[in-house]
């Protein structure tokens, strides 16, 4: 069936690729671009492990086609660190123990990016509401919320 040539800026780099219409964005990132930081979890739009930023806003890449991203800018978990310097959210998740098995973490951090963009100094309720589309089966969420609050404080202080 139909094939499409798409041009997508992923983590600052313009990528041009032929994809079949049915290629999901999550599969395009992982299998075509080998950016395996973005996880496939439920693949039914529930767990949020596949969350990435499209034009700066968090979406679930398992519910998007790669062709829908044509001409757009995508940020994945691989695009957050500056060389060896972790993004404040990554640093905070590490220091606060905002993860156990780590499978949900890329999605949690991408959703958190979106929260902090909208609310640079969020309340706990705003963080909880912003993570409403992401599931974690290990932590119980307390330390995830704490991680986002700590990162917000650091980023706002800078």
């Amino acid at each position, binding site marked *: *069936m*139909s094939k499409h040539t798409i041009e997508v800026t992923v983590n600052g780099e313009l990528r041009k690729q032929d994809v079949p*219409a049915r290629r999901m964005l999550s599969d395009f990132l992982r299998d075509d671009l080998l950016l395996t930081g973005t996880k496939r979890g439920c693949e039914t739009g529930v767990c*949020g492990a596949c969350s990435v930023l499209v034009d700066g806003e968090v979406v*679930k890449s398992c*519910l998007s*086609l790669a062709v829908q991203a044509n001409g757009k800018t995508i940020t994945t978990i691989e695009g957050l660190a500056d060389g060896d310097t972790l993004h404040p959210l990554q640093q905070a998740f590490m220091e606060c123990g905002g993860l156990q098995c780590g499978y949900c973490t890329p999605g949690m951090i991408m959703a958190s990016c979106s929260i902090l963009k909208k609310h640079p100094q969020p309340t706990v309720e705003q963080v909880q509401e912003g993570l409403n*589309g992401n599931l974690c089966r290990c932590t119980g969420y307390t330390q995830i919320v704490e991680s986002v609050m700590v990162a917000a404080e650091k980023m706002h202080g800078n």
Partner: protein
Amino acid sequence: MRDFEFLEPSSIEEASRMLAEAGENSRVMAGGTALMLAMRQRMLAPSTVVSVARIAALQGISFDPAQGLRIGALSRHVDVAEADVIKQQYPMLAEMAAKLANPQVRHQGTLGGNICYADPSTDPSTCLIALNAQIVLGSVRGQRMMPLERFLVDYFQTAIEQDELVVEVRVPVLPSGFRGQYRRFRKTAAEHRPLVNIAVAAQLEQDRCQQARIVVGASTPVPQRLKETEALLKNQVIDQALLKKASIAASQEVNAVSDNRASESFRREMVRVNAYRCLADTFGLPQE
């Protein structure tokens, strides 16, 4: 997911011709959140997907004091939630959109797509029917407008024709003395789909309720106007006793369904509880 032909028309006319040619085994895609889910689970397997995402005529939100609100079909839920004009003029609509599903869906899913998909367990249509919204449909044959209340026919079924697109949603200017509230009930805070939702749009003159539109959704195949309950409030001075009576009437009038999410009797009870709370919020009375 089965493979398909993916088309990207740039105008309503082009999309309309493509849909007419592709026939019944085609689907329109806007944000795609619901469609992708249905296709991944093979509930739908269209041979042609017509993406309307690049049609400029379906975009934008504007307000005119005489004409009211126009929401382009491609407006995402986050656009509805954050548009200043909606927050100011139709706060119940902005608040509904701000808490719909989850942030990822709000950033991608569109109002037009949501309405056309006609999934009963969602928020916008209940709220919009209370506000007496109209829907504008476009095709090569021109445009037509109908009340949203008539557009939604049954579970996942609308009055749209094969070659038509939803162009925009229009909401009339609210009368003076308008009061309105939208309320959703979910079984747990983590759920994304309401089990019951209710919207009230009333017009007050001093203490008297001139008229009220009361709509219940998510428990019925399509959102339902509760006209008998509305009649109880018409030309009445509102107090808690009357709202209690109205909320019991609402729970009896609603055509609640039983399914694997909840029984009919539980839904009726939740309609009663939430109807009271929504009405109390609307008229500024205490929550029992």
